[in-house]
């Protein structure tokens, strides 16, 4: 059933030279993700979560092993092909929001669509729809500097979702948000996951996020130590 995986890694290794020794940021990580998963890599800082997301997001390449994303081996992709894969199929959400400061909320959300050569009308519909999902349609003309952290991250979610990618990779999306905004964002993402069957993969050590995950993969020093699947959401009521 290899083919049912959207993302599949095999013995993924990423090393960095540190002084005279070698640091294993990822140490033989073999994981598969199916469409519609709401999964998270959990572990302390420095355990390799970001490195893993970067490789399956085709932003980075492995030292050893393979990562096949949407049928393509990340290592075999040229710079241009990798960009194309990200453009069409992967949305990123970052801890620091990474909105483009000179553009309005609307333009930030529109940005990923610019490379897709869509007719302006279709583009506008998609942007407005994405802004409605995150309940920010009324802030379309604002600049990022005028937004709160929660609003900024919602714009980032809209930007990631606007092209309806198969995969959304969210690296510590709640690290700069208060509890209320964190739940807000997580609710939105969960909704999108249900409605669009978008695969979400988180990197986090935030308990609030962990409560939402339906699959929790624990990383320690670049190694997968646990891979737990829950039938239901991990009940946020516990908190």
């Amino acid at each position: 059933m290899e083919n049912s995986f959207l993302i599949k890694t095999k013995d993924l290794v990423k090393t960095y030279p540190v002084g005279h020794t070698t640091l294993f940021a990822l140490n033989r990580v073999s994981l598969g993700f199916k469409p519609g998963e709401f999964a998270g890599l959990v572990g302390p800082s420095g355990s390799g979560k970001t490195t893993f997301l970067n490789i399956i997001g085709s932003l980075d390449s492995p030292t050893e092993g393979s990562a096949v994303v949407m049928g393509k081996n990340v290592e075999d992709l040229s710079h241009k092909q990798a960009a194309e894969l990200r453009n069409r199929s992967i949305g990123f959400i970052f801890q620091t929001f990474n909105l483009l400061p000179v553009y309005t909320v609307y333009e930030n959300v529109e940005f990923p669509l610019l490379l897709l050569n869509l007719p302006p009308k279709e583009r506008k519909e998609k942007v407005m729809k994405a802004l409605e999902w995150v309940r920010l349609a009324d802030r379309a003309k604002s600049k990022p500097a005028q937004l709160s952290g929660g609003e900024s991250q919602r714009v980032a979610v809209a930007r990631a979702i606007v092209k309806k990618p198969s995969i959304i990779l969210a690296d510590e999306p709640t690290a700069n948000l208060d509890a209320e905004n964190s739940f807000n964002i997580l609710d939105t993402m969960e909704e999108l996951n249900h409605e669009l069957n978008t695969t979400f993969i988180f990197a986090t050590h935030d308990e609030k996020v962990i409560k939402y995950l339906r699959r929790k993969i624990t990383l320690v020093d670049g190694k997968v130590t646990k891979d737990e699947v829950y039938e239901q959401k991990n009940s946020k009521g516990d908190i």
Partner: protein
Amino acid sequence: MIIPKLALRNLLGAGLRTWLNVVVLSLSFVLIIWLQGLYIGMGDQIKEAQIDVDYGGGQYWHESYDPYDPLTLEDAHGAVPDPIQNKIDKGEATPILIAQATIYPEGRLQVILLKGIDPAQTVVNFPSQFLVQENGEIPALIGTRMAKSAGLKIGDKVIVRWRDAQGTFDARDVYIAQIMKTIVPAVDQSQIWIPLETMRELMGMQNEASLVVMAKDIEELPVVSGWNFKSLKFLLADVEYLIKTKKTGGSIIYMFLLLLAMLAIFNTQVLSIFRRKKEMGSMMAMGFTRGKIIQLFTLEGAFHSVLAGIVAAIYGIPFLVWFAKKGWAMPEGYDDFGIALGEKLFPIYTAGLVFGTVMLILIVTTIVSFLPTRKIAKLKPTDALRGRLS
């Protein structure tokens, strides 16, 4: 198509810094066009004046005549050949005889050129009509520069000494009949004009001339042995060269300003690429290739020149138009510069000048904007996202 739009948004989004660069660059625009226009205007004015007063439609020179070698002047004269004499008789040409001479104003010795011209000629716009002979004395016409250097006034008498055709020295008094103010120094500095026939007589050079000025609209040019036709192109070559030299000299002023603008833009680019690593990382995450990002940043810089062109047009066009109407009043001392300059200089702005300036600034700005972006070519997406320089 999307990248130019983004570039413009980014550039305008950068605010004050952009406008500072744009203003400096726009000054370069206006200064280049203004100065070059002034030189083009100067060149045209000089050429027109030289043609009008001195060169006519070209000149026949006696084969020994060489204006740059006064020592040869002694032999640089000969009988005017018939085909040319025909033109002279029809009023389509006028002969000029030139000899070296010395004058002794206030007891000083001054070497000059003695030039004979027909007082009745109408071939060139030269005030030879003042050389009508009265009461047996020899009338002389000089320019203001000559009057100043020799301390001569209208009515003054001065001894002129020369060698005649046989090589013997002779001397005669001439009186200053008129002092002319001309913008062409070539017919003024260190020279005295007297009636042609008088000069031929004194020199024993009947029917001879050193050169013959042809009328401006002359069409038929006879070929005669011993005389060479010098076209306007040849005669004006010196002026052209002079203008070119002046243009080059003048360009130092705006090259400096342009350099300043380029340094500012270069600096802005370097800073912007350094500071916006994270932005580049986000763009890569959204599917932009490095090539597209390089394009974007290069265009951002290059668009400074487009904005500068617009700003320059806003204040530059009214200024340049006003200036072209008003002209540039030449300072006093310019009279002695050795080139024909009127009291006022009118700049000429040609389409070629404007187009050339726009292209120059556009190309230079693009190159300067592109150079710092080469760093991006090696930027890894992960490093960019961390906001780090690779």
